[in-house]
């Protein structure tokens, strides 16, 4: 009775190869939760250049992409190593002029993704009004428009929708045709995954289609939105995935300290990214013992 199931699985290397230089990417995860770290590493390994990244806020994942000169433009609301300090590589790349940032707010970015998903050219928002977020822009000619509401007369800001070439999202689990579940907060990933012209879903684990179809209510990203699926356990390390593993603060602090200098960053990049062949070799370098210590405990989920 049931339809044929398409197999959308490819490897991380194959997925990253699909992204051409100059492409525009929605970048999933929020704060320390589910950033596509492994995808960032592979973008660096394959030497991609001149990408534009759209995201609400991210941390060492996008700092690495700036450090390795993979990304030249960001449209976002926030970047830092939360709770520790400013993102060291992005700071340097802004100073040397190789990275430009167009500033929005978190809600504005999330609505830009929702607008892209909904197929409308803009979304209304009641933030940003009256501030330099409206009046100043770095590289975007039409960053935001303030109009008077034709129903109430009040001022409303309109932000342009985004339909990036690729949406990159790291999730809890997915079946081979792309039905994805996300445990815990979704950040802006529900909208972002629906905004991309193509969407690549990386997942901690691949589950049988049977498992998904027994619980349709739990599907956060249905197959129709998903172009490719990548199995990628520990794919957000050293950040966290709810119900799977906690962050490795020791590694994050080491990253922050070391990347304060360009030399330190180059050393980190060589040691953990370009100097290892792939994601599995990276994980081996971190070591099984360290990973197992981070595994989430029930019912806490961290």
């Amino acid at each position, binding site marked *: 009775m049931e339809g044929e199931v398409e197999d959308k699985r490819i490897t991380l290397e194959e997925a990253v190869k699909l992204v051409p230089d100059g492409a525009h990417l929605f970048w999933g995860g929020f704060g320390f939760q589910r950033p596509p770290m492994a995808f960032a590493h592979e973008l660096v390994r394959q030497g991609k250049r001149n990408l534009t990244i759209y995201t609400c806020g991210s941390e060492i994942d996008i700092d690495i992409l700036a450090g390795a000169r993979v990304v030249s433009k960001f449209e976002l609301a926030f970047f830092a190593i939360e709770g520790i300090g400013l993102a060291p590589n992005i700071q340097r790349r802004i100073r040397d002029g190789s990275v430009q940032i167009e500033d929005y707010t978190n809600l504005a970015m999330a609505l830009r993704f929702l607008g892209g998903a909904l197929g409308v050219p803009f979304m209304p928002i*009641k933030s940003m009004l009256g501030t330099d977020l409206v009046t100043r822009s770095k590289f975007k000619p039409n960053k935001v428009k303030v109009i008077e509401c034709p129903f109430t007369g009040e001022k409303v800001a309109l932000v342009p929708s985004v339909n990036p070439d690729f949406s990159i999202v790291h999730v809890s689990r997915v079946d081979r045709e792309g039905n994805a579940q996300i445990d815990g*907060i979704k950040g802006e990933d529900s909208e972002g995954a629906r905004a991309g012209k193509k969407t690549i879903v990386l997942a901690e684990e691949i589950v049988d289609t049977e498992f998904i179809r027994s619980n349709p209510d739990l599907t956060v990203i249905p197959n129709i939105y998903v172009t490719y699926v990548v199995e990628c356990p520990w794919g957000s390390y050293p950040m966290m995935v709810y119900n799977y593993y906690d962050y490795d603060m020791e590694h994050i602090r080491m990253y922050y300290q070391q990347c304060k200098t360009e030399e330190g960053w180059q050393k980190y990049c060589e040691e953990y990214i370009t100097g290892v062949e792939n994601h599995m070799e990276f994980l081996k370098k971190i070591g099984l013992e360290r990973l197992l210590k981070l595994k989430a405990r029930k019912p806490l989920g961290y």
Partner: protein
Amino acid sequence: MQNLKEHAKPGEYSTLELMAVCGARAIKNGEVVFVGTGLPMVAAMLAKRLHAPKAKIVYEAGFIDSNAIDIALSIADSRLEYRSSAAIGLIETLGILLQGGRVDVGFVGAAQIDEYGNINTTYIGDFESPKVRLPGSGGGNDIVSSAKRIVIVMKHEKRKTVKKLDYMTSPGHLGGPDGRKNAGLKGGGPALVVTNLCQMDFDEKTKRIRLKTVHPGISVETVLENTGFNLIVPEHVPETEPPTYEELEILRSVDPTGIYIPRST
């Protein structure tokens, strides 16, 4: 043992502890509270365990009515999901709860504020060639735009309390009393600023910033020496009510290892 309702004495608490207590006291029972990580999170958890057990704590990543038992290091930290009512996303928290007008009080930080409570968290120096690029708005502008009232928590320094911001990230009262209304903003704007030296509120008529209380041991002169803008100083400036032993005890149990509020010596 001391009477829990008694005020602690100088030396029995740190300035950060006093600031967290000031933040907690700004939360009323039953209110919806929007906080980030750091000191405001600890303040909200303290309020909830003390005088505001019905307060609902919302974190912008999507955690609604969180009951976390461990201190989180990220706004999207898995620790915040524990026994929450719901875990959704940014459109839910920043859009529907906040912009929808359901958040009573929001806490934000600031790298610079001016005398109308306008906030900079984006650039220090010139926009075209800044000295420092700060993290940006994040959800800060959204919170300050739409929460019914705003509590700003920051370090009190002359270079942070300026006559003119290098960049306006979040709207205080803009140019004065009608500023927010004319701009189309929904929320009530900044109501309280908690620093390491004092608490400040806003003059009802002019919406300019005003000294409210000075922390124990801090003089009005010290505040003025460390302030870059024109601060309204009322004739009588009371002292900030010190933490009670009860407040301190709960505060220390909320952040037992002193991640955000190192233990006072």
